């Protein structure tokens, strides 16, 4: 095997390969997938000298440890966490050189949920429908990382960025999600719509790449039953029978039968990806642009 490869020493709780995802196939039932905190993934790619579409690693809460077979430049961003190379502290949010065979340890997040690890050349697993992203809903793309797995790396295309530390937004202490109401807000009572846009929810521990689940006051329906299945978008706030809103994230199903009360604006979704369980959530209604 080529030495452009990365050995997985510690896979962590859930580490997946992610890029910009595979939009454009929703009509076939294929989720878009892709990095949940896309700005963080783009930033670490830029720091490592990769193009925006290069595949990175997305960790969950407790990081991962990797051993490159040849010297690489890496950059770690997203959820802030300790970074060590060969046991010595290294920078978070900046390009870091990792010698061949040295251990890169991406530690547990100090705050936030998902750290991103870009490696010069990008993770070069075989693309599926134009993307290397792991899709946890439908199982497309590479499986989540396992201990002792080996990931192929691409060839670096450019020099890493010349910065010391790049500024990144802190994970949210309170998650404020701006929503436009509809398309199915009329399936809820006016009191439920007021509850939705005025009360505080909390991020549920059952959240994942498919959806940010919440705990809080249940939303009462004006109409019973289910809709015939209809297409849903990224950021849709679907309300299942338990009445607790679920915000659809990148691996969301392409169609659904529970009513969508509102849609979260795309610019608020990266923060949703970094909100730990228990974080207060407020849905703030805004007018459509």
């Amino acid at each position, binding site marked *: 095997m080529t030495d452009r490869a990365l050995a997985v020493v510690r896979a962590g709780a859930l580490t997946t390969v992610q890029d910009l995802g595979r939009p454009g196939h929703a009509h076939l039932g294929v989720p878009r997938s892709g990095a949940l905190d896309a700005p963080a993934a783009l930033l670490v790619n830029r720091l490592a000298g990769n193009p925006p579409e290069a595949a990175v690693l997305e960790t969950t809460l407790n990081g991962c440890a990797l051993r490159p077979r040849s010297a690489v430049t890496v950059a770690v961003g997203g959820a802030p966490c300790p970074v060590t190379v060969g046991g010595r502290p290294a920078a978070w949010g900046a390009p870091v050189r990792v010698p061949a065979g040295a251990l890169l340890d991406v530690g547990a997040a100090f705050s936030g949920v998902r750290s991103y690890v870009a490696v010069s050349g990008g993770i070069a697993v075989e693309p599926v429908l134009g993307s290397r992203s792991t899709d946890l809903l439908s199982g497309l793309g590479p499986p989540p990382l396992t201990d002792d797995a080996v990931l192929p790396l691409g060839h670096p295309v450019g020099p890493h960025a010349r910065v010391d530390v790049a500024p990144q937004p802190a994970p949210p202490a309170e998650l404020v999600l701006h929503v436009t109401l509809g398309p199915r807000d009329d399936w809820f009572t006016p009191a439920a719509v007021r509850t939705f846009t005025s009360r505080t929810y909390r991020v549920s521990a059952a959240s994942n790449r498919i959806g940010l689940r919440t705990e809080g006051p249940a939303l009462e329906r004006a109409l019973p039953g289910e809709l015939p299945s209809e297409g849903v978008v990224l950021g849709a706030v679907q309300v299942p029978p338990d009445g607790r809103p679920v915000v659809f994230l990148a691996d969301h199903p392409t169609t659904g039968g529970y009513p969508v009360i509102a849609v979260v604006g795309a610019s608020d979704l990266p923060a949703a990806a970094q909100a730990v369980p228990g974080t207060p959530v407020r849905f703030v209604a805004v007018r*459509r642009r």
Partner: protein
Amino acid sequence: MRALPVGNDALLVEVSSGEEAQALHAELLRRRAEGALSVREIVPAARTVLLDGLADPVRLAAELAAGEVPPTPPRAREVVELPVRYDGPDLTDVAAHWGVDEQEVARIHAGTEFRVAFCGFAPGFGYLTGLPQRYDVPRRATPRTAVPAGAVALAGPYTGVYPRSSPGGWQLIGTTDTGLWDPARVPAALLSPGTRVHFVQVGPVRQTGAAGPAVAE
């Protein structure tokens, strides 16, 4: 026809029937192919078409409201033939719902021209319409934890083929060996919205496999 705004750059167009949704879908695809419509996703479903990633949702909503997007009959497309063994574990139950015997279920099903109304549930899973309404069947009371790949199944007004093994609550009437989904193939999905489908009976008609719990639950 009603165009509901979805977020800032999507529209959910609601129509009154599945046929109308298919015709609207065909017209929207035609417009996109002509370069008259800039949109990232066109997702048909039971009675809606979702347009996501629209350059100008307000203008399109106005055009739809003014009746300037007349649904057109879908173009005649090539028919995909799927050889099927009518050997599913729910064949007898479906025959009872239909008030016919198992042989007749196979004859009616294989004698119907289906059309993929929309896809969802899993990559490459098509919701096929074509059977008359009197042949609608309910889902199973208890879903199976594993339905094998290639299972031909019925639920409500739809026929579907499981592209790979997954949990499922549909009534299983047969099996096909044809690969429905292969990401390495172009196109990956054998069935996409608008595809016409014929099931071709192969082998004898007989129920095999566990029909479910032996005693009433």
